[in-house]
């Protein structure tokens, strides 16, 4: 494959690398000439981003370039000041967008399972909510910690609880704002594998903001680089899964992104 085909401009018919059962061909969301200003400071400008359902998108950029702002728009925490954001069709039984923060943001006064149940607010309650929460805790490997206080968990375990909380409502879109940034290197790789495994199983659309280029190419179908409020690079990562970390292919893509960031 040539380098040129990798950087080919994206069109509306982006082909996901992975076949996605029922949601194939549908769109998860699209930004059209979207911009965001705070006062007279333009943070995002003319963002065009069309993301098909089920895609794993990574967003990279230097600190302060507007990555979090983009996610906040996506999660409905803020509104674009220009342009538009549209979503694909809402599916029955799914919450639309879930947000995973850089910090776990668990309620210290609620047990681990109760914290996960927060993700079912307005969806389920009582015994049903507890059962769903316990199931997803099993998936992130914390079923045996369900009734403990968050304060006794390690940083990585807290972030896994936060992941379980984000996923328990079966979101269509999961927005992740540097969720692994504060973890040590080994825990981070473990979490990346967990995230990939659950994404393959649940088929949601993932938007991962990260400052770790290796993480982006290891996990994502597509990497977008933001620079000075604009999309500076939009790159497919057409590498089969499971991917081998440190492979030549991934390293080449990584170099390309770094060139764009610092070139």
């Amino acid at each position, binding site marked *: 494959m040539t380098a040129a085909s990798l950087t080919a401009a994206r069109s509306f018919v982006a082909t996901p690398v992975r076949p996605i059962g029922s949601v194939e061909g549908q769109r998860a969301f699209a930004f059209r000439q979207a911009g965001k200003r705070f006062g007279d400071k333009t943070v995002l400008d003319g963002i065009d981003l069309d993301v098909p359902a089920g895609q794993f998108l990574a967003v990279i950029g230097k600190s302060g370039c507007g990555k979090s702002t983009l996610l906040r728009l996506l999660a409905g925490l803020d509104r674009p000041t220009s342009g538009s954001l549209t979503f694909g069709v809402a599916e029955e039984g799914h*919450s639309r967008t879930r947000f995973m923060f850089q*910090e776990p*943001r668990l*309620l210290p*006064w609620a047990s681990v399972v109760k914290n996960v149940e*927060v*993700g079912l*607010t*307005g969806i389920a309650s009582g015994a049903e909510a507890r059962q769903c929460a316990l199931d997803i805790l099993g998936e992130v490997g914390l079923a045996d910690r369900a009734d403990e206080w968050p*304060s006794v968990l390690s940083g990585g375990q807290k972030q896994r609880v936060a992941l379980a909380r984000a996923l328990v409502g079966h979101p269509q879109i999961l927005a992740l704002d540097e969720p692994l940034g504060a973890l040590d290197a080994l825990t981070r790789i473990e979490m990346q594998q967990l995230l990939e495994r659950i994404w393959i199983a649940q088929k949601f659309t993932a938007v991962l903001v990260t400052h770790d280029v290796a993480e982006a190419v290891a996990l994502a179908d597509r990497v977008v680089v933001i620079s000075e409020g604009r999309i500076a690079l939009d790159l497919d990562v057409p590498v089969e899964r499971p991917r081998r970390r440190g492979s030549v292919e991934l390293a080449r893509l990584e170099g390309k992104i770094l060139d764009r960031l610092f070139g």
Partner: protein
Amino acid sequence: MSFSTRLHNNAIGWLLPALVIAGWEVASRAGVMPANVLPAPSAVAEAFWRLTLSGELIRNIGVSTARALAGFAVGGSIGFALGLANGLSTLSRGLTDTTLQMIRNIPHLALIPLVILWFGIDEEAKLFLVALGVFFPIYVNTLLGIQSVDPQLVEMGRVYGMDRRALFFRVILPGALPAIFVGLRYALGIMWLTLIVAETISASSGLGYMAMQAREFLLIDVVVLSILIYALLGKLADSLARLLERLSLGWHPAFQNG
């Protein structure tokens, strides 16, 4: 900590008071401590028994406790409500906080002459003073507690679709609770202090009244007994508040393994 070591720690706390009382008794019997300055513990115990049999003690404790609780309920609930309102609404805070902070600088006991002029020496006077004294610690700490709730948690609650009610009961109130308990315990101390002063100055029943009557008849054992009972009631209130705190703040690292 295991149950037995906790018991052990509690027991060790009582060692010093027991030694002081034993020393006091010895000093009184040896005539080092004249009975008209400080009666022997045994004399105080006798007074306790005498007044218990006559029913006078129970009645006065009942009257004082009822006053304390009534004042606490009135002042505490107004303080709590205003603390919540001002913590949750900037409009409400802008409207009332400056005024309240100004009033807070007046020591409430300095109002006694004015309160006697307004209410005479009736129940209202004592209720008013206790309520005023209790109001501020509850108000200030409730407000502080709500303002110190982690805004990141509030944002998380919003993102996960909590409505205002859920946000309040699941995020804001639990987050404010540690500070509210600090206010509660402080208020309980002020409650007894205010009541002692108010009853000593003007009352026709209650523990303070009992002490003042005894002073007139030079019944110093009853005076000492009243003081001790005030201390015990204060300790009891504090212990109850601590118990409540331990039960409701089990998640807090400060209360774990304790």
